[in-house]
């Protein structure tokens, strides 16, 4: 698969620092002259864009005369806040930072693939795996913070004599969660790209536009679903028996 122009830029200028970092963590790059991969470069581009965008927005926050960007972000914030309250419960908005970051970052990572010359990092299986592993550790961490060591009681089922049966089932289902999160996000973005390429090869002009539109819709939906499932898992972890 050929390199993007921006990956070439990174590889020709920043190959040295990348090799230093990779060798320091004992993970040398497969190709020492091109250590940057497409998805790493695009992820850094999105990260810098989001950072600059929100830094500028923060500097221009105004109560009396909000601009369009502030309005949009307020709608987004209310949406995530209301969703977290509805799904996680009363304590939902405590974890708003995590959910909002997941939503915004995955959304922009999905959408950057639509710009010619960039690739969606979520199209490569490592990136959704990173998100899924972070979510996995986050919801267990919040569960343990909320319940202390009694968090284990959730895995043991309703009766003490069912515990030996429930524990393996619960462990398997909890490990299936990051797997399904990864595969869902990766397969949606990857399949969208493949379908788009197939239709560009088949019918060159009008029909691929429909598939780009579908891919955009799926990008928003998959970002929302990742956030919603993270909320459901956190809700399951911190819930108290009534």
């Amino acid at each position, binding site marked *: 698969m050929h390199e993007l122009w921006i990956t070439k830029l990174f590889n020709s200028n920043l190959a040295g620092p990348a090799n230093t970092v990779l060798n320091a963590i004992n993970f040398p790059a497969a190709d020492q002259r091109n250590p940057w991969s497409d998805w790493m470069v695009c992820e850094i581009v999105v990260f810098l864009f989001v950072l600059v965008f929100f830094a500028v927005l923060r500097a221009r926050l105004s109560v009396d005369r909000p601009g369009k960007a502030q309005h949009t972000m307020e709608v987004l914030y209310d949406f995530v806040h209301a969703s977290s309250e509805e799904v996680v419960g009363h304590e939902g908005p405590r974890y708003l930072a995590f959910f909002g970051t997941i939503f915004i970052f995955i959304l922009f990572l999905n959408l950057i693939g639509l710009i010619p010359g960039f690739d969606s990092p979520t199209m490569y299986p490592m990136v959704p795996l990173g998100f899924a592993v972070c979510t996995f550790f986050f919801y267990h961490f919040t569960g343990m913070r909320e319940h202390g060591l009694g968090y284990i009681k959730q895995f043991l089922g309703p009766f003490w004599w069912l515990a030996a049966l429930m524990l393996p089932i619960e462990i398997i289902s909890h490990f299936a969660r990051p797997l*399904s999160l990864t595969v*869902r996000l990766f*397969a949606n973005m*990857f*399949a969208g790209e493949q379908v788009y390429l197939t239709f560009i090869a088949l019918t060159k002009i009008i029909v691929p536009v429909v598939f780009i539109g579908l891919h955009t819709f799926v990008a928003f939906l998959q970002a929302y*679903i990742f956030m919603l*499932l993270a909320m459901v898992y956190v809700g399951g972890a911190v819930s108290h028996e009534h």
Partner: protein
Amino acid sequence: MKSKLTLLAVTMMAMASPMFAQGAGNTDPSNYRLAAAYIAMGIASGLCGLGQGRATASAAEAMARNPGAIAAIRVALILGLVLIESLALYTLVITFIAK
């Protein structure tokens, strides 16, 4: 009617017997992989389509019966559709892996 359909089905299956005349051609497993992948994808998409159809139908009916709960039903509908969709996508991923 049922016995006539059974007779028709058995006759059509019997008419396929020339298939046994083909020699022991290349029984190379990688030739079957592609065909198996296509069939698997077809079955997965078909059954997931049925599941999503049922989910959408009951969601639409519930929204019609109870317009006050439309927001909550919409959340449940989207969540259910995406979870069913991901089952078909697992098959798609295996199709690409087993190429």
